[in-house]
């Protein structure tokens, strides 16, 4: 019974066709394995620790040494070089390979004892803002801790109630709670984003060659006959085969790559799977649409690469969409990945329920509709190659 069902026949053929196709093997197995493992390995340490910094202690006093000890005790910093002149500061970033220089001025200790304002200057190599931000944060923390301790010491002899010292020195105490990625781990932050954007790209690129390659290889007639001339059966059969491959790829991502790099999934797996099914469907259908519209597979591939390549930049993942100029925000909106990512982050990192991703689901459904529209346009403009007459089909 099933064997005679055109959808099943096309599905079976497509499964075999994809398995034999070098391009599909590259896209679904080799590229993700190599690229995902490589990307994960880049950030395998997770967080930046012990960033090398240099110190120029122009005071060499008890207090300046205390300050340096504070710096050394921070897990974020490692004092690797001690400079002996201010001339060395300029080239320290390149010559010594440090990411920051702490300059403690002359008479640092003496000035503090004399109540003369004194300033510690910190130079950060901000050509890389990851280091720049980390050093900024740590420098402020260390300096404020020492500054606070000095003030507390100054206040104590003035006859203050000991219970009020903290309230005077630090009147507002921030209790910070970090949701999503409390470890500030770069693998947890970047790898899910990078793997899912590549997931869309892989599926889209593969689907963009689903039909035009049949024409190129002169196998369309065989497909048409197998589907008994039913275009919906042809599309559905291919869709299910692509879905199987795409789910395999998702399995590789979430069940192998994520555990290898210890990436936690906070959200509900069932909800994530539902979202993933919709996202994959959108990518497949849009790819099919492109494949039916553009007969030249290379041009279709060009269009697919051009459309998908900037998806990560425009998704707002590393740089927010609201900070982009308006034409770019429009482009960001017309990429399904932008909406998938928002929904994915809500489910996977914030562990929200399905109703919170309703706006994104609706947008993805709109993309699905666009994909179907693309298929319809493709069927219309290439009808002569798609709807074969019984005579041609028999040939």
């Amino acid at each position: 019974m099933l064997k005679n069902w055109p959808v099943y026949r096309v599905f079976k053929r497509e499964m075999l066709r994809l398995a034999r196709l070098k391009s599909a093997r590259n896209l679904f197995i080799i590229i993700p394995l190599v690229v995902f493992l490589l990307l994960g390995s880049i950030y395998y340490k997770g967080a930046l620790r012990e960033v090398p910094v240099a110190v120029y202690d122009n005071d060499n006093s008890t207090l300046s040494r205390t300050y340096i000890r504070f710096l050394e005790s921070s897990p974020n910093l490692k004092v690797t070089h001690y400079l002996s002149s201010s001339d060395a500061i300029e080239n320290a970033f390149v010559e010594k390979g440090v990411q920051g220089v702490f300059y403690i001025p002359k008479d640092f200790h003496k000035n503090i004892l004399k109540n003369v304002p004194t300033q510690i200057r910190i130079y950060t190599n901000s050509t890389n803002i990851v280091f720049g931000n980390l050093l900024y944060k740590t420098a402020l923390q260390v300096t404020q801790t020492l500054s606070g301790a000095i003030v507390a010491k100054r206040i104590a002899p003035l006859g203050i109630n000991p219970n009020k010292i903290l309230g005077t020195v630090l009147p507002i105490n921030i209790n910070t709670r970090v949701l999503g990625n409390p470890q500030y781990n770069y693998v947890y932050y970047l790898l899910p984003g990078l793997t899912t954007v590549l997931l869309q790209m892989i599926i889209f690129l593969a689907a963009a060659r689903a039909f035009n390659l049949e024409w190129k290889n002169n196998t369309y007639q065989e497909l048409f006959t197998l589907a008994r001339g039913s275009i919906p059966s042809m599309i559905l059969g291919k869709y299910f085969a692509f879905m199987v491959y795409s789910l395999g790829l998702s399995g590789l991502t979430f069940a192998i790559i994520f555990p290898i790099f210890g990436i936690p999934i906070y959200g509900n797996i069932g909800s994530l799977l539902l979202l993933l099914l919709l996202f994959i469907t959108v990518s497949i259908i849009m790819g099919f649409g492109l494949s039916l519209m553009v007969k030249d597979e290379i041009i279709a591939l060009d269009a697919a690469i051009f459309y998908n390549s900037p998806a990560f930049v425009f998704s707002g993942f590393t740089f927010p969409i609201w900070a982009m100029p308006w034409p770019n925000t429009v482009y960001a909106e017309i990429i399904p990945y932008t909406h998938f990512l928002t929904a994915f982050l809500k489910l996977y990192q914030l562990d929200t329920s399905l109703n919170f991703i309703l706006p994104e689901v609706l947008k993805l459904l709109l993309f699905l509709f666009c994909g179907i529209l693309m298929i319809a346009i493709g069927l219309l403009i290439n009808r002569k190659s798609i709807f074969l007459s019984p005579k041609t089909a028999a040939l």
Partner: protein
Amino acid sequence: MNLRLILTLIIKEAEQVIKDHSILLVLFIAPILYFVMMGSTYIKKDEEKVSVGVVDMDLTKSSKSFLNKVNATQKVDITHVYNSLPEAKIGMSKFEIQGIISIPRDFEKKLKKNESSPIGLILNNTKFLSSNDINKAVNLVTMDYALESRQKYFESKGINPTFAEIKANPITTQVNGVYNPTNNYGNFLLPALLVLILHQTLLIGLSESIASDRKKGLMKVGFETSKNNFLTYITGKLGFHLFLYSAYLLFTFLVAFPYFDLPIKGDFLTLIFVSLVFFMATLLYGWFISTFFSSQAVAMEIMAFTSYPVFLVTGITWSISDMPLFLQFISNLLPLKPFFVFIKRHAIMGVDAYLYSHEVIQLLLLLLLGYVAAFLRFRYLQKKSMQIKPMVSGTLDQNGI
């Protein structure tokens, strides 16, 4: 090396590019479009007005004043006011806001009594940039409060206001973001991104051209045209791409860099010279790798997926020394890595030449490596094409019989 033959090969390559719509798109349209699209994304360089929600349970003058101060910071914008924490969390779950500031009851009372008043800060850390900016802004405002409170205490003890201010803040810090004073995202990413766009479009276009040659048997024709001289063949085949990307190079440094307000502190001629070495090394590497593809589609698919790993493995976003050894090794084999370091040191930092000489030497060595690899591959393919020749004629003879 025969100049006339080189010119013939360059013209042939140009004709192939013009005839093949896909290569034409990749080499002529994609670089400009990506420059405009990607470059303009970071034109504001940094984010502003990150949405934050507040839950003010105190509703006093002090709590409002604190929130106003937070709102007055450049990067934070209080866009939502909630009546309870669960309500605010719903807002965060909807991604309406990126952070929540919650002020408990008795905030003002405690402040006035000189008791430490805790406030809650909940951050959505799914995106680091916004989360960091909110954290920084709230911390800076609380520091202002700390200084004010300390100063007031000293004043209450009869110390004059100027002296009290000094006593309240014995150590100040001045953080100077060298080479990127505002520590912004655009200045950090744009120079590398523009170079990456050129690198990737060049590789994709070249790999398509060579895969197409292999498929159509034109590689052998090219070898024959060059009279089997490697230098003539490679100069002719890659010359067109080098000319084209030299033009892009000038466009990048003369138009794109000034437009995006990116500095070129070093000497321009050195910049162009080293950039040409980089492109030559990339072309030789690209030719070598592309000769393994016999299908234009496969070449495009594979090259398109190299963008992210190639970019990230160069250490542009992460310290190379924190990567595994095998990745450090791979990174050092890519011309892009020393070139990024060179651009950073020469153009952005403007340091003395001896501080980037190591990178220039590395680029020259990679150029040599690319040359040797391409030469050996050329000889192999040449030998193979010569072996095919008698076999083909042999087959024809048999068929003829």
